[in-house]
């Protein structure tokens, strides 16, 4: 048996030999690789990195090898993560199944489900989408209405899901359905996995204020779902959903870490668009100060992400820090784009055409897109509830049901 230090040495050597240099930079927009039946690569290096990590079992390094994982201990996995971060390796793919559903199947699924669902997931062969939100439910997830009715060897699913990211491009969905309408709402929910090519499923992309989007509404019209695709106990889905959302928060903060540095750089944009110090009007001076302060808050956030990693490695409890990351990042992004729109002035008001630079148009869309960030993935208000309840342990409220 090798020691942890041997493992670190071997891992570092393997990553240095196998992670192409072009996969060790920040992640530019649109360069994400999504796993699935029709995985696409923009570059040969993306394909190499994907295949090498897949064959090593390191899409999900800490899953048992029998289900296609890397079989690493938690300690080894922590070493791998720190080495990946040290080399600034990009994630080889984005896969909701691995990040969110997989751990839930490992904990709650039957042996048969683990053998059937996990190995293809671990090879990045299935692109997953998440069917949680419904029209009119908002943050009150448990009020979902999509029904699954027992029909012997299968369920019949009817209803609709909304805000499903890449619902039109995914192979399978994990979804919450109502299997008992006659009990308190959290107690009648089950978790199903569904093949998106099943008859009766239609996914329609949703246009947003920022233009075309990856969000879809997905409609279910008498869709047959075999009973073996029920994960966990019948009507016991709420517990699984809560576990899954915890994995989502972790994944989203990881996601933020990777996508952060390549977005619009406040200080350099302020430098480009605002007149030189000497020629500044008082209004320019005030605006420049706002941009600086915003850049400082952004720095405070990325230092906090760094501190979270260090505290975790020092085996300190980081659940408090983890709970603020989504809230802070999404609120800061929104504030940042407001400042940027002010800095660009008229140049930030374009929609399309040659009168505006591509970066200016992209910024306008990003500003409009930023409004979704404090709503999607648990609204800021839900995040604040979570911090108040779980971290500060403030007493349960009488101000209505709290969010997820």
């Amino acid at each position, binding site marked *: 048996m090798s020691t942890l230090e041997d493992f670190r040495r071997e891992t570092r050597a393997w990553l240095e030999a196998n992670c192409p240099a072009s996969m060790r930079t920040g992640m530019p927009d649109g360069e994400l690789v999504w796993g699935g039946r029709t995985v696409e690569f923009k570059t040969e290096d993306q394909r190499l990195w994907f295949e090498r990590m897949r064959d090593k079992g390191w899409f999900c390094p800490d899953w048992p090898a029998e289900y296609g994982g890397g079989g690493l201990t938690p300690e080894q996995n922590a070493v791998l993560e720190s080495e990946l971060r040290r080399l600034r390796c990009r994630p080889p793919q984005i896969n909701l199944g691995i990040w969110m559903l997989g751990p839930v199947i490992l904990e709650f699924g039957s042996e048969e489900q683990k053998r059937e669902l996990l190995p293809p997931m671990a090879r990045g062969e299935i692109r997953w989408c998440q069917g949680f939100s419904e029209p009119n439910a908002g943050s009150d997830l448990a009020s979902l209405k999509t029904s699954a009715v027992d029909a012997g060897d299968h369920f019949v699913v009817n209803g609709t899901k909304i805000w499903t990211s890449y619902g039109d491009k995914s192979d399978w969905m994990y979804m919450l359905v109502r299997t008992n309408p006659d009990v308190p709402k959290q107690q009648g929910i089950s978790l199903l996995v569904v093949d998106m090519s099943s008859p009766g499923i239609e996914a329609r992309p949703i246009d947003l204020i920022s233009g075309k989007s990856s969000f879809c509404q997905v409609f279910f019209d008498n869709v047959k779902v075999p009973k073996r695709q029920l994960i966990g106990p019948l009507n016991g889905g709420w517990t699984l959903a809560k576990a899954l959302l915890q994995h989502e928060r972790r994944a989203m903060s990881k996601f933020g870490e990777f996508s952060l540095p390549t977005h619009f750089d406040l200080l350099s944009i302020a430098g480009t668009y605002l007149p030189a110090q000497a020629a500044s009007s008082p209004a320019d001076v005030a605006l420049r100060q706002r941009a600086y302060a915003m850049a400082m808050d952004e720095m405070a956030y990325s230092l*906090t992400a760094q*501190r979270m990693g260090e505290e975790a490695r020092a085996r300190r409890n980081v659940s408090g820090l983890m709970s603020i990351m989504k809230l802070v990042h999404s609120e800061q992004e929104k504030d940042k784009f407001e400042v940027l729109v002010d800095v660009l002035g008229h140049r930030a008001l374009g929609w399309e055409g040659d009168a505006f630079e591509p970066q200016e148009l992209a910024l306008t869309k990003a500003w409009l897109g930023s409004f979704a960030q404090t709503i999607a993935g648990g609204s800021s208000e839900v995040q604040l509830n979570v911090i*108040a*309840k779980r971290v500060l342990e403030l007493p349960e409220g009488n*101000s209505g049901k709290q969010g997820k």
Partner: protein
Amino acid sequence: MSLVYSEEQQLLADTAAEFLMAKSPVTAQRKLRDEGAAEGFDAALWREMVDMGWSAIPFPEALGGLEFGCKGLGAVFEQIGRNLSASPLLSSVVLGGAVIELAGSEAQQAAWMAALIGGDKRVALAVDETPRHDPAAVALRATRAGDGYVLTGTKAFVADGLGADAFIVAARTGGQPGEQGGISLFIVAADAAGVQVSPMKTLDSRNHATLVLNEVRVGAAARLGAEGEGFAALDAALDRGRVCLAAELLGATQSLFDTTIEYLKTRVQFDVPIGSFQALQHRAAWCYAHLQLARSTVMAGLAAMDDPTLDAATRARMASLAKWKAGDAAHRISREAVQLHGGMGVTDELDVGLYLKRIRVAQASLGDGDFHVQRYGDLSTAEA
């Protein structure tokens, strides 16, 4: 650059916490205030801090220090903030000591370092003249006279100025107020002819003074470093002070935050604890988030001071970030603490007001938020 305390630094923090809780809780600060203690701190307590080695933490072994870095010092200052403990650790040791370490000749270091570390003498740094901190704005003049200088002018808001044995005075030997060039540093004995020190009674009940220099004669040996080139050492020393003060602000804010959360859990109105109201929960959760951001910047600021591989501009930027964010979080949270305590929050009986007052003074000291935002931005864009 690590953003967590090492085991030794944590041990130091724990020892400091234990010591201060026993010897210098907030009640001790309240007592100093009520008694109108002129120097704003308890000399016997300061002696004990010195005996524990705190005054030796940041300095190289060659100068009699423990070489334990700013991070070690930050661990202590965080506890000082939690307890609102007053002492000349910042003014005399961190700021005064840093100027002498960075700009002093061997003779000047021999004359002062052991005395500062041993707590036998103390110095106060006299920089500001205008209502807001701005070290480049120095106007106080030092004119050559024979083989020495004559200093004339006024310094305001000199921390721990009353009772100091000497002042480190930033004076202009060239250039114009606003320019970094032309600033020279002098060490001026408090009992020199023409030196006049008078109290500025500040709302945190600490020792702040006005210093008037009326044709004060000093010899050439009183000058620290080269003539007209004092700014770099002065600013580097101020940065050490800024991150330590940021750590103190963080500690004070953490303490105030903890007290407030406890109050939300126990204070009952409308038959329920007020902490069950969502409107208050959300405000408390935001306070928590800002406190965490502030902690990250303070840890990064302290670590930057200890990192010899960083250039001066990066260190300065990290110090400004820490001072700005710690001040920002302290400001938000102290205001919320008063509001969330309701009517009790504005009574003198509760300690909340003592924290609010100390935080306001610490926020303005060594550069307020606006100062540090401008400085951070200037340093960042100059680099780009």
